[in-house]
Every structure is written in C-alpha cells, then in structure tokens.
C-alpha cells in the first residue's frame, strides 16, 4: 500500500489558515458573484465555510481532549449558538451603519470576544481549569460564525442583511446550517476520539462532513438561487466529500492495527 499523506499543523498556524481562508473565501465569493453578475459562484462561500470547520474541529479536539463531562456535541452546539447570534448582529449593525460589506468582520470580532468571555467564565466561575479553554472557545466561536456565514452566503448568494434574513432565516434553512454545520465541527472528534486520535484523521473527517453539509445547502440553494447555482454547489459538495472520504478511509486504514476481511455471515447466523 502506498504511503498515505498525513499532516500535523500547529494550532496557531491552523487558526491563521481558518481565519484568513474563511474571510478571504467569503469576500472572494462576493467579488466573483459581483464581477460575473451571476450567483453561480455562491459555492465558494461553502468552501470558505470549510476553512472555518477545520479551524473549529481542531479547537474541539483540543478542548475535549481534557474531558468536559457532557459529551462532545454540547460544545459544537455552543459554537453554533454563539455563531448565530454573532452573524445576525454583525450583518445587522453593518447595514445600520451603512457599511454592509464589513458585516463579516464585525460578526467575527464580536464572536471572538464573546467566545473569550465564555471561556473565562467556564474556567473561573465553573472551575473547569482547562488551560486551553479560553483559546479553544475563542476559536470555536469564530469558527461557528464563519461556518454559518459561509453556508448562509452559499444559500442566499449575497451578504446583504435583508437577503440573508429573507433566504436563510425566514425560510428556516438556518436550522439545516445549524445542525449540518454543527455536525461538521463536533462530529470529527466525537467519531475519532480515543487514545490513538490523530489530528490529520480528525480534520480530514471534518472536511468530509463539511462536504456533505455543502450538498445539503446546495439542495436549499436550488430553491433560493435556482437550478444552476444549486447544482454546481451539490457537485462541488459531492467532489469534496468523495475526495476526503477516500483520504479518510486511507488514514483510517493507516491507523488501524490490522484490516481483515470477515467474509459474509455463515448461513446458520442468518
């Protein structure tokens, strides 16, 4: 078997990738849509969300490796809950101040500050004493915000507050982003945790689930953006899912003690 590509990235480096990748990705999607005058390039928003997902999945594995007592899903839901509030606030305030395009930045800054405060509360008030808690929740809050923003853009094709509220909130598609995006952030560590948990396997799994979420938002985009933009997004989501699924499968084989075929069930067991 050929050697499988693995990687190891420092959290600080990954944070930069996640931040820059998602912010640049969302603005790139806006510019591409504006320049070409179509909404085909909305899928770039979903790709930007994947950067946020990787960033968040890494924060989940850092914090949850200490054990938080309530299961990994709770931290993913917290991340997306903080993200929802931050996105609405950022977009709305930017629109009120007349700087609609800066909504992403305002949402991001608010979410980072709020995440840090929640991390402080968790450590100081509730006595978690997890050294990376503040850092981890800052990351998670920002990652949740960028994931929601990216996929919201992928559904609405615009960063305007009015468009996002009309296409994503009033239609209820935010619930899909909430759960699918939450899965992409929380599921990787939940599925891979254990003494042999490896960063590359967990993060590749995160991108894989992110690809599935992109298929889901693509189906939503069929209704809001039309057939072409929706189909492009579904195809891109499928491609991402397939590529990372194969990669993940190889990594799982690499980390397995042994891979043996068990054969079919014997006739007496059926």
């Amino acid at each position, binding site marked *: 078997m050929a050697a499988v590509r693995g990687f190891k990235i420092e959290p600080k480096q990954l944070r930069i990738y996640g931040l820059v990748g998602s912010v640049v990705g969302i603005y790139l999607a806006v510019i591409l849509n504006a320049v070409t005058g179509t909404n085909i390039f909305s899928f770039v928003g979903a790709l930007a969300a994947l950067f946020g997902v990787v960033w968040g999945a890494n924060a989940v594995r850092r914090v949850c490796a200490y054990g938080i007592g309530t299961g990994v899903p709770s931290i993913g*839901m*917290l991340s997306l*809950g903080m993200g929802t509030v931050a996105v*609405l*606030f950022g977009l709305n305030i930017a629109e009120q101040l007349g700087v609609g395009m800066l909504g992403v930045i305002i949402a991001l800054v608010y979410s980072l500050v*709020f995440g840090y405060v929640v991390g402080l509360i968790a450590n100081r008030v*509730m006595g978690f004493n997890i050294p990376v808690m503040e850092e981890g929740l800052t990351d998670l809050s920002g990652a949740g915000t960028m994931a929601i923003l990216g996929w919201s853009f992928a559904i609405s094709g615009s960063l305007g507050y009015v468009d996002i509220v*009309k296409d994503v909130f*009033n*239609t209820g598609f935010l619930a899909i982003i909430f759960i699918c995006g939450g899965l992409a952030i929380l599921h990787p560590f939940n599925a891979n945790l254990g003494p042999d948990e490896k960063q590359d396997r967990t993060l590749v799994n995160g991108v894989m689930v992110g690809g599935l979420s992109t298929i889901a938002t693509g189906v939503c985009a069929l209704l809001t953006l039309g057939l072409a933009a929706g189909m492009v997004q579904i195809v891109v989501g499928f491609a991402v899912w397939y590529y990372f699924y194969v990669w993940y499968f190889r990594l799982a084989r690499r980390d397995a003690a042994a891979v043996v075929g068990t054969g079919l069930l014997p006739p007496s067991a059926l």
Partner: protein
Amino acid sequence: MSFDINTVIYFLEIVVGGLLVGIGVHFVPVGGAPAAMAQATGIGTGTVQLAAGSGLTGLLSAGLMMHAMSLSPTFATDGYSIWPIVATGAVGAMIMMDATMLTGSWIYAYAVGAPFASAKVNYDPITGFSQPPYVAPGTVGQGIPTICFVSGTIGAAMGGIGGAMIYFPLVLINHNPAMSAIFAIGIFMVDAVLASWNIQGTIEGFHDPKFKKWPQAFKACLVSTVILAVVAVLITPIIGGV
C-alpha cells in the same frame, strides 16, 4: 436603534429568560448515556438536547399564543400581554418534558424491567419510599422516580418560561418571528450548555447534591446573557420589516 424605557424592559426580560433557562436545566433529571442503558437515574439523553427540547416547545407554544392574540378583535387597542404568553410557553414545555419522561418510564418499566430508584437519597422526599434496596449493584439508580419526575416538570416550566421571555421581546424588537426564534435558540444553546457544564453531565433533580452548584451557573449565565441581550436589543428592522 432607539433607546427608551421599553428597550430596558426588553433587555431585562431577555436576561431573566436566560437565567431561568440556566437554572431550569438543574431541575431536569438528565442521565446521559448511562441512563440510556438503565444504569443511572434520569432521562437517557444529554442536557443540551433536553434543554433545547423544552425551550423550543416553549418557543413554539408562546408563538402560537402570540398568533392567537393577534387574531383578537381588540388586538389593535390592547396589543400583546406577556403573562398568557409566558404561561403558554411554560405549559408547552411541561407537556413536552412530561411526555418524554412518561414514555421513557414505560420503556424502563416494561421493556428494560428496572425498578425506579434514586441513588442520591435514602427515602424519596415525596412518596417516602425506601430507595437503596432497589438500586441494582454497580449502578447509580434506574428509571425516573417520583421526585425526579416532579423536579423535571418544574425544570421544564422554568425552561418554557425562559424561552417565552426571550422570544417575546425579540419579536417586539425586530418584528420577525422566524429570526427571533433562531436568535432565541442561539441564546438558549449558550445558557443550556453553560448550565450543563456546571452539572458535569448528569443530575437527578433538586434533591441531588450537585444542585447546590446552581449559583455558579447563575453567575455564568448572567454574564453571558447580558452580553447576548445587549446585542439582541441593538438589532432593529431595516427595510420592510426584516
């Protein structure tokens, strides 16, 4: 953004709602994965799921009440009244939680075959029944004893009131029910997760020694909800009521 006395009232309502959610979580008998295997007392799922469930049913029933009020012929002069909305939210959440506990109890009693017993108290404070003889060795109680059921109902009522008290001012601020519901879910998730971290996963109800930790959750939820409420009152409708 227009600040007047109403903004302050909305702000306080959201903060009180968030605190009610945070404290209400402590009343709900959450057993987590051990309870799903009938090895611990309580409902066999996580705190966040239960808190979200009771809060969302509270939201839904509060929304239904608001809709019913808006159909009233005297609505134009009367406007909304908060008490029926809050009461409906509480009842909706209580029905949801009681239905969950009741059907869960049927499964524990008739499918798993476990006697309901609490491992945290020697005598059930409500029925006075002795508990330790029925706790199977190696477990921390099974099923949902009377005290847990009562405690869970109280917790659900607090969650429902909290959900309605967050949702109602949000609708009055931004005039968009869908957005308010999702925003309320965001606030709900933050408070429920903070409270569930405080109880470290499992709790039996108000008779559990862990319940004494609630002041910590109160402080944590106060700080986080204040930050969220400031943001909530700043969001204003822009064009055409969105």
